């Protein structure tokens, strides 16, 4: 378990992390989500005792990192895959780290095997591809078989296969009862990886909830209905005081009606009473990126001149999302909304 209390970090005049409190539970993957420059890496460095907090404390299983004896057997971290001497071989790199915490040498070969680097163990790490470096970083984190694992943007720059591999790896680690804390600036990625979320923007806590709740609260949901008699359908729905939008024939399928803030039960019953035929009745969700921008809207550090979007609560999707996020198509289906 990781507990942060009022964690604050100033670099000169920039406040990188501002009075941040959260807890990370064992047995689950907890996502640490925030736009670029939100303070995720800084927070992770403070958890690991590399940077001194300006104020506040962070404890791992009740202790500060610096109080841990043989810390690598309790906490494993991948903050940056490039923290390796380029002229040292992968095995030498792991060997010195293992030696520092009295981890037996045979463990080096085990973790190399686990991440699939056995065949290149003797090669210099400087020649590794990004994916291989990332795997070496994960091997380093796993070396002491720790109960707490921290990963800073582990899928950055990886191909889909690598992303899938890392995602499954984290699920497995959490299933073994470990505490897994993984940062990302992509909600869509976290939706697939994390069960819980700690969301920050500009160094402040925005939300700490389950991923499910965060997405539900943040994204607009609407019911999509379609049938052979669209005119009558439209009339029936509006007569009940529901807002109805026409969706033209497009990528989402044939022309249909979109009813925000309604449930499929409600509409199904309504339409059944008047005996109308339906070809489609489904829930559509706003994209995760929209949800994320909505919630972190006021807290994106590097935004490209966009009018402030009121934060909190489900509000209309922002019209022009500038800055680091590309505006996604309206009302895309929630990726991976279920089946975790």
């Amino acid at each position: 378990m990781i507990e942060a209390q009022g964690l604050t970090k100033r670099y000169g005049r920039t406040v990188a992390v501002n009075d941040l409190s959260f807890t990370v539970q064992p047995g689950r993957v907890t996502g640490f989500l925030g736009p670029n420059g939100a303070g995720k890496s800084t927070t992770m460095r403070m958890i690991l005792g590399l940077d001194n907090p300006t104020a506040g404390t962070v404890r791992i299983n009740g202790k500060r990192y610096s109080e841990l004896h043989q810390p690598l057997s309790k906490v494993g971290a991948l903050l940056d895959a490039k923290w390796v001497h380029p002229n040292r071989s992968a095995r030498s790199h792991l060997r010195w780290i293992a030696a520092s915490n009295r981890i037996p040498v045979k463990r080096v070969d085990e973790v190399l095997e686990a991440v699939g680097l056995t065949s290149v163990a003797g090669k210099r790490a400087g020649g590794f591809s990004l994916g291989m470096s990332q795997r070496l970083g994960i091997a380093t984190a796993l070396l002491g078989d720790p109960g707490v694992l921290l990963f800073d943007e582990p899928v950055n720059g990886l191909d889909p296969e690598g992303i899938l591999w890392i995602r499954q790896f984290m699920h497995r680690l959490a299933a073994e009862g470990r505490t897994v804390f993984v940062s990302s600036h992509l909600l869509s990625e976290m939706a697939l990886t994390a069960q819980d979320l700690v969301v920050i923007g500009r160094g402040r806590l925005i939300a700490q909830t389950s991923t499910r709740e965060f997405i539900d609260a943040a994204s607009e949901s609407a019911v999509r209905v379609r049938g052979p008699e669209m005119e009558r359908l439209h009339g029936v729905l509006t007569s009940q005081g529901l807002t109805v939008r026409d969706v033209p024939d497009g990528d989402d399928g044939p022309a249909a009606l979109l009813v925000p803030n309604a449930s499929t039960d409600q509409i199904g019953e309504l339409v059944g009473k008047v005996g109308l035929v339906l070809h489609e009745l489904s829930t559509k969700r706003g994209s995760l990126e929209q949800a994320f921008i909505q919630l972190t809207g006021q807290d994106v550090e590097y935004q490209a001149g966009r009018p402030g979007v009121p934060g909190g609560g489900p509000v209309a999707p922002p019209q022009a999302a500038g800055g680091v996020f590309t505006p996604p198509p309206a009302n895309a289906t929630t990726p991976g909304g279920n089946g975790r």
Partner: protein
Amino acid sequence: MTLLTVERIKLFSTRSPWWCMILATVLTVGLTTIFAATVKSQDLADFDPGTTQFAYNFGLVVMMVMSTLAVTTEYRFSTIRSTFLAVPTRTPALLAKGVVVAGLAGLVGEVTAVGSWGLAKVIQPDAPLSLNTANEYRNVFGVGLVYLFASVFALAVGLIVRQSAGAIVIELVYLFLLENLLPAIPRIGDHIQHWLPFTVGDNFIVANQTHHADGPPVIEGMPFGPWGSLVYFAAICLGLFVIGCALAKRRDA
């Protein structure tokens, strides 16, 4: 003990320390060999143990560079962070690095010194190269100790500056410019010179000898005898290292 092993693995699993060791040895022993082979027969009586060490500064600088790089490359590639993750109290890891790196520098200093003297003795068996007096022993075997503490000095500069080029430039400017130019200041220059660490460190090797044309420079009126000089030099180097460790412990890694 384990941390010594760690630093040993780190040092020897990259190539640059090997190059530095080879370069230091080749420079000192090579130059001495050339000197020994070309010394004129009328100067042979002056070819004493002290003279065989005339090139030790070259090897010393190379080993100082190696020592600095042992620290600054860790900052450059952020392996210092992995080190501090493994040893969060930081100081034990830095002390272990000091012991391993400075120990190696001392060993190289000793090997080059004995190598230079031994080869000179082989090439010029008629020269007065046998070691009899305490002075003559220090002339040869003292060199390793100067290497050792100079390496501590270089480690400290690396810890304070944390950047290879900057740290090495500072060391070279200090060694070759400041220690040579400060004594040139009128009136107070001499007094300053007597307290410059590397000048005093060198005095440990050459103290109590009379200067002659080919031999190493011997400065008169130094405040300490040979062992006092070594203690002073060591204190400065270790003091700087303590400052470096304190900074490394306090600063964000």
